[in-house]
């Protein structure tokens, strides 16, 4: 088709009237139109984030200005430094990082093990248990939420970080296991057969052959888990009471309640919100390709 469209020059394109020209012109204009719509849409989608950063750098007087201004004048970096002092943000950040790191470690260690068992080993009940695993993806969290709370309460785990990361060490969630299993299924069988004939144990095959090969999908899982743990709100809300153990999401919500009551310090609130958003965006950009692959696999479920 492209050879056909290249048969005329620019002048033909403007004043010509043959069917090829008409067709090329129509294609050109429909693409221009698509660009226009896409640009307009992109502005709408990105604007709230711009507005967030812009507000976080404004002095209070400019924040409440009518009509609003996009460019902060003067740029108030003080919103960030003041927020840091005014608010135990560093402590919340430390708590969040603790939960995020421990739960990521749990997922990255346990999920590939389980996925390997489902993808590469034959054992009685495997297919049945895999169906159950898929079934748990459909289960709304509210069904298990209350008994889990009662259980953790009996164990003395309420108001500790344990409920937020220990479960991640037990397989790391159905989505992650499913994702790694799908990846493992694509690795040719011959690779381990020769190792089995050489007398290598399954542990050795897993450690020496499989783990290095599944690195890409582990990156995906790591990003998923980072975002899940970083963004989690209901978990900390239910289990954490003491303010010194708040995660960022709980802290941000507390801060918001304070500012909306006083109608001041919006700049600081938006600075705190920006701090919460930035790591997610950075992680997304670092692993964009793998991350999107993972979203697509779990989103289409093939």
């Amino acid at each position, binding site marked *: 088709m492209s050879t056909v469209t290249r048969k005329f020059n620019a002048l033909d394109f403007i004043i010509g009237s043959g069917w090829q020209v008409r067709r090329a012109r129509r294609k050109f204009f429909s693409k221009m139109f698509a660009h226009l719509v896409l640009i307009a849409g992109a502005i709408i989608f990105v604007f709230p984030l711009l507005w967030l950063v812009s507000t976080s750098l404004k002095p209070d007087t400019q924040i409440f200005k009518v009509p609003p201004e996009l460019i902060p004048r003067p740029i108030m970096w003080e919103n960030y430094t003041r927020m840091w002092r005014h608010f135990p943000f560093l402590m919340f950040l430390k708590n969040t990082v603790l939960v995020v790191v421990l739960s990521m470690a749990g997922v990255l260690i346990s999920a590939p093990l389980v996925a390997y068992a489902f993808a590469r080993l034959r054992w009685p009940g495997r297919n049945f248990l895999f169906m159950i695993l898929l079934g748990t993806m459909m289960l709304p969290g509210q069904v298990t939420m209350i008994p889990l709370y009662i*259980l953790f309460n009996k164990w003395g785990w309420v108001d500790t970080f344990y409920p937020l990361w220990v479960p991640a*060490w*037990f397989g790391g969630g159905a989505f992650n296991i499913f994702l790694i299993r799908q990846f493992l299924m694509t690795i040719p069988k011959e690779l381990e057969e020769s190792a089995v004939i050489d007398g290598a144990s*399954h542990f050795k095959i897993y450690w020496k052959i499989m783990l290095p090969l599944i690195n890409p999908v582990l990156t995906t899982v790591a990003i998923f888990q980072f975002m899940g743990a970083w963004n989690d709100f209901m978990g900390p809300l239910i289990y954490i009471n003491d303010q010194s153990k708040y995660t960022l999401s709980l802290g941000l919500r507390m801060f918001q309640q304070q500012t909306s009551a006083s109608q001041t310090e919006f700049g600081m609130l938006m600075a705190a919100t920006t701090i919460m958003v930035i790591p997610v965006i950075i992680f997304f950009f670092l692993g964009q390709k793998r991350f999107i692959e993972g979203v697509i696999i779990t989103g289409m479920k093939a």
Partner: protein
Amino acid sequence: MRLISNRMARREAITGYIFASPWIIGFVLFTAYPIVASIIYSFMDYNILETPRWIGIKNYIDLINDRTFWLSLGNTCYYVIFNVPLNMIIGLSIALLLSMDIKGIAVYRTLYYMPSIVPLVASSVLWSWIFNPNFGILTHTVRLLGLTPPAWLSDPKWAKPSLIIMSLWGAGGGMIIYLAGLKNIPRTYYEAAELDGASVWRKFIHVTLPMLSPTLFFQLIMGLIGSFQVFTQAFVMTGGGPNESTLFYVLYLYRNAFQFWKMGYASAMAWVLFVIIMFLTWLNFVISKYWVFYDQA
């Protein structure tokens, strides 16, 4: 020889259980046991401090007579009915535009996708500011258009639509998936349709939609399940108000469990939610026979 292979099969089976054991133990402890316990609790009166008391189906009967339960269910249905289709339509529209073999697709894709990964608490705080009835940027934009802006989150009529508008900001999440689905449609199908003189619209109806229907179907199911569990936005932005207009199902469930400590009652609510979601999923599977097209190739 047979002995050796038997031994190897056994070794493999044992290894299999060992490898799967973290999930098996986790499943029993953190999923299977809670499911069973939840069913039992739903027939009990239990406030954590005192020993649970068996009350039969009283919780379920109370639910039927609970005005707030029906209100929260209604609010949630409103949210689901508008949020799920609108999210799909917007996500699909962007994906269709991007699939037009357009330059800079990677940039557009990133820009549209980014809002969908913003932490929900953060976007709730941000959108509370955007919806601010006096100084919010949306309020101002509507004024610029010469219209009278509503009070958004403080107006019982507008609170739910406001939360839906905010949720549509994340429509890029679906877009990524539709885009991948569109790329999987063989070009030859479109070429064949063009030879038959099919218009753009007819190609969309007769090629794109059927070929994309499994993806749309899966997204519809996941969207329904997700939207029925809407919680964080309402909790952070409106606290269920104004006038209980954003008191969603899971928010009411949360209140029963962790504010009123009615664990049995909340468990019953969880099961009703589960049944509703399962019924809708089942219904969708039944209806899917009429519109979802699975290419056998």
